């Protein structure tokens, strides 16, 4: 097997030493991953070479402060990377990277995408205001057993928690904490894996099988859980009243869209002059209803954003982390995108080959969304007798 190896190393330090190793040996020039801040209560991303590899760096941090795809976008948007760079991403970050690559916002030339079996993450506010030492401990110990519990909605219902689609996958599930599997899925990944000092030991198959078994079961459970959660959630927001109740606390800060990796626009449509209307427009609208909430266009922003990005939504939950009003934005967008994606049978972040649904079309499709006309309508006939 040239696409899978087992790497010895205990716990997180063991995982980190893999990166240290490939940097030192020049298999990669730089690595992009989060590292804990000095204060110890949060994480930031660092682009590091072998001499700058931070002690505090953490490939699998317990929180997602900034969606990794946004970081990678900032690096490669205006041109490819000239040094061989490994980027460590959560599965949801990875999926966003794939989407953004299709949207020409990320250039994957010289980039090696590395992802992993993700246990989930703490809600951002919980982590920052909590006791980080014990939270970290609890988090790190759950890496191999899928036993991490969180209140972060996106993670509770996440059913795509492996690094599938990355060049290199780090696999912890079903392993003991003294090592992990590393597998390559692309030419780029295999090229790197070739020189990784892993053991190609005999029980590799057993280890792989153990993971596959746990994974199969977990994925099934999590998928069912996701459907149940979304269905239940749907009941609570269904209809105009419920939906507007959900948004009643929204302060139109648009942080959700700023945190969202898929919202790649430099200026959001809903912040542009398209909606900057003159006084007479606002007054007219207010006059019609006798009152108008200000700032206006709250629902239009959210529905419009769904219209723009739900096809590519990867359910990472960055929006919800960013919401100062604790609106369950992530649940809402996941719910909507589950259905819009199903319309086109589109799985965002799954493959670079899968074209974006709004770029392609078929001549024969979606007839169920047309209002068919097979029989003359009677009242029109009566009104217009010749």
């Amino acid at each position, binding site marked *: 097997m040239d696409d899978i190896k087992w790497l010895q190393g205990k716990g997180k330090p063991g995982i980190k030493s893999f990166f240290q190793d490939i940097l030192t040996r020049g298999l990669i020039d730089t690595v992009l991953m989060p590292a804990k801040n000095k204060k110890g209560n949060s994480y930031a991303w660092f682009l590091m070479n072998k001499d700058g590899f931070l002690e505090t760096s953490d490939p699998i941090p317990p929180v997602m402060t900034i969606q990794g795809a946004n970081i990678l976008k900032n690096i490669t948007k205006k041109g490819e990377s000239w040094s061989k760079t490994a980027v460590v991403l959560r599965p949801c970050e990875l999926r966003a990277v794939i989407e953004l690559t299709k949207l020409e*916002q990320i250039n994957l030339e010289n980039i090696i995408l590395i992802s992993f079996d993700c246990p989930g993450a703490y809600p951002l506010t919980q982590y920052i205001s909590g006791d980080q030492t014990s939270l970290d401990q609890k988090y790190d110990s759950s890496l191999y057993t899928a036993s991490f519990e969180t209140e972060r909605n996106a993670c509770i219902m996440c059913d795509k928690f492996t690094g599938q689609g990355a060049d290199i996958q780090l696999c912890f599930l079903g392993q003991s904490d003294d090592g992990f599997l590393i597998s390559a899925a692309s030419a780029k990944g295999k090229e790197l894996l070739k020189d990784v000092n892993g053991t190609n030991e005999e029980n590799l198959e057993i280890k792989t099988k153990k993971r596959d078994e746990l994974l199969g079961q977990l994925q099934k459970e999590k998928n069912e859980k996701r459907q149940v959660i979304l269905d239940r959630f749907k009941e609570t927001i269904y209809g105009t009243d419920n939906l507007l109740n959900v948004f009643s606390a929204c302060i139109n800060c648009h942080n959700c869209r700023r945190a969202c990796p898929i919202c790649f626009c430099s*200026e959001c449509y809903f912040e542009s*002059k398209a909606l900057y209307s003159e006084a*007479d427009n606002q007054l007219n609208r207010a006059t*019609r209803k006798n009152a108008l909430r200000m700032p206006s266009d709250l629902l239009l922003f959210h529905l419009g954003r769904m219209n723009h990005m739900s096809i590519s939504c990867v359910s990472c939950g960055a929006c919800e982390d960013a919401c100062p009003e604790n609106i369950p934005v992530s649940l809402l967008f996941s719910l909507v995108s589950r259905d819009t994606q199903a319309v086109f049978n589109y799985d965002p972040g799954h493959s670079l080959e899968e074209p974006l649904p709004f770029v392609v079309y078929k001549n024969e499709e979606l007839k169920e969304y047309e209002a068919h006309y*097979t029989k003359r309508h009677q009242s029109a006939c009566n009104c217009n007798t010749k």
Partner: protein
Amino acid sequence: MPKESTTLIYGTNLSGYRIAYALGKLGYKTVLLNRGSYVDEIKNQVLSQLPLDLCWACGHMPQRMFIGLGAMQVFYNSDILEVNGSAGNFKVKVKKRDPYVNNFICTECEKCIDVCPVDVTVDGEQRKACYVHREMAWENIYQIDETHCTRCGECEKACPTGALKLDRPEEIVEINVGAIILSPEFDEPDENDLALFGWKKFPNIVKSADLARASLSTNFTQESFVRPSDGKLPKQIAIVITPQFNQKGIEYESYNASAQAIYRANKIKEIVPEIDVTIFCREYRCFGKGHCRMYERAEKNGVRVIRTQSISIDEIPDHNISIKYEWGNSHKEQNFEMAILIFGQKPPQQMEKLKKICGIEANEHGFCKLEPFTCAKTNVPGILAVGEFTAPKGNPETVWEGYGPVREILRHLGDKKIEPPKLPQLKNVSKEIPKIGVFICSCFGSFNEKINLENLANRINSIPRVSKVEIVEGCCTPSTIQSTASKIKESGVNRVILAVCTPLQKLMKFRKTVTMAGLNPLLSEFIRLREDVIQVHDDPEKMESKAFALIHAAASKLKNAQAAPPPMDKMGSTAMIIGGGITGLEAARYLSEMGFQSDIVEKTDIIGGRAAILSTDIEGHEFKPYLDNLIKDVNASKLITVHTQTNIINVSGYAGNFNVSLTKTGEDQFELKPAIVIIATGALENKVDIYSYGKDARVMTQSDLEQKLSQINNGHVAMIQCVGSRNPNRPYCSRICCSQAVHNALLLKEKGVDVTLFYRDMNLYGFKEDYYWQAIDRGIKFIRFDQHNYPKLTGSDDSLQISCSDYETGDELKISADYLILSVGIVPDIQNNEKLAKMFNLNLDDDGFYDVESCACPYEDASKRLMKPFELSSNGVFPVGLAHSPRSLIETLLMARQAAGKASVVLPKPMMPPPNAMYVSEVDADKCVGCGLCVGVCPYNAREIDPVKKIAVVHPFLCESCGACVVACPSSAAFLRDHREEQMISSIDALLAV
């Protein structure tokens, strides 16, 4: 004597229209003779057959535009009387009688109808003697019913513009023209011609085209398919393709009829799935693009197709229909509740007259005879014939044919005459606060009768930014355009709303009004006060409110309007032709004769391609001398450069300005900068490995056979058609195999060789069908097999044993033959096609040939989109010949000329404003993040991502302002100049603010 520069077009078939457009765009004037009294009275092929759900508007509108620009003149009630002189200087005597209502001046105010005192009832319809003829829905045609009109003159007095005149005498005029194009229309078979099928004899036998005509205003619904006898939905419908069963010489068909039959059947199934549909035909002629797929869909829908040699139709009680048909050696009978006839085309009825007047000749079928290998050339120099006048044709061919003869026509014409009108000087209002003027047209007082314009005007006054509201008489006649323009100017406004009638028809006039007032048309909005309010509603109060809402919305939209000049772009004038086969060479020679430079890029070391091995076709065209001549001309031409052993490695740029990198074996890379590209890369012969092909030398393809023909002088040859094609893997017909097979069979038979031909459908279309009857006469055996039961090769010792079950009789036949010839058909060169398609951003169709959705070349299955008014804009790449679809050599030559003809209309433009001038899409560079979504959705390749700046750029003359980019762009970086996002949003708000 200097040559004339006007062209006369006789008849209104679509090729004739095409020619008029092409010449108009090149700056030449045409005179069109319409024998009818209005635009579509004499129906051309498409309007006559109505094969699909048809919208003719896009073809119809340019006519008005060209008339408006002075490029075209139409004589109604006209005919050709005498032709004197010769090519370049014909003197043609024509008679004409102007219509009572000149619909170019008519404002459609309907005052004439209001005052007409004569009430009549015709066919159950109550109307006046002066009325609007509504047979074709796309234009209001004002008519005077001569039999009932008392000539009291009230209508003429009431007409505010002088469009209506009762005194329209017949005139005889002589016109001087350089060339004459004969493009008379399709002739439908009449009652006598269709007597065999009981049409007009039995109520429940209807013509398919009548069915479609009756449904024009609703499209097909259940009601379209009810029985005329009792208005009930039938349980079983038979569809009969009449030309396949009619007596010889009465009607002819190309593939329109077969396609139409399947299309109708599918439509019925889609709308009323419970109806049983059975199609009766002799052959399903399915060689048009996508037609086999249509057939597959029909099969899936449960449509039955019965192939039989003859049928007879009778009525049984309850006005039901009984159809008896030949089935093997017996007869079968089936009953239906209704039958739909799909008719073919009669030999042109104008032939006799035109023969006398013009001196042209007819062929043995009574169609116009053309010189072999030519495009539209008759035996008289300077007189050309096109469209359905020369042969039964498929719709795409008929439509497209108009470009081919451009070269030939120009030879006979003098200097061009028409200059496009210049835009008047426009005011710069960018620094002014928006001041909107609303000018409400009263249509010479007729609107006031329906709606209180004063009240409306008062309400509009309250809309913010509206500084002037005025009721005007009109703005579509020369004097009212003038007066309204001055009123706009005087009022000092810098934005204009005209509340008028139909911009779709009168757009040019309204724009003229605005530009004459010195305003950029981007600063104007036209409200359809009549079409959206007055004519479709009754309640004056509600009408006023709706009119107010529409004007309020327009005012809100205009507030944010910004003026901009029409963008311009440079345009090269050379062509690159990919493929040095006969198609490519033909295109190059055509262009060189038009004075354009071209480069032929050929990957092998010789030009001429596969045509070099062909000798003759079934109709007796000799290819060798033609090809030799062509190669000689190409080599001799200073304007053509041939690059052999050359490959394309990269393409950048866009239509008008391509940048192509090429390599020639053993030499340095070089570059070409063509404005347009013609792809003539051809296709491949299908390779099969069945029937022991390749293992047994006695099993050959038709092409193999052609090389060995001289060696086979006796014995028995079997042929199998459709080998490896028209199956789910390759669901298309290669079009040429049947004629190739019958041609070879006839040649063999002449030498005394027996031939048995196994086939599914005999696709010998048009006049080629003669050869089928000839083959039968000469004793060639034709055995039809079922698509699921191909003949089998059961033994191959001394002779080849072939067994087959006869489709009709079911008999198991065993035949021994000395040779087995397979008709394997044509396959696309997928690898090459994919490569080039990617480079030029083209699509391939489902079969792997070039798709022509957005290309300029023949709209293969889209007789629906006959003519696009602004067709100057194409993406500049023309796939022709076998690269586009399977077709015969003669047909590929025609196609090469048609593409080159179109190219020659586009190429002589060094600078081009975009087709929609002002209204193109643009990019807000500050907002664009280069995601490429707009590039992906643009149907015209008008956008690309700037490789350096990484933002989208627009090539203005490729943009047709469809707005796909605007929706694709999640930001508001992509916008249409006259539909900016802020304009659209505030106009919706205003529309709804009741």
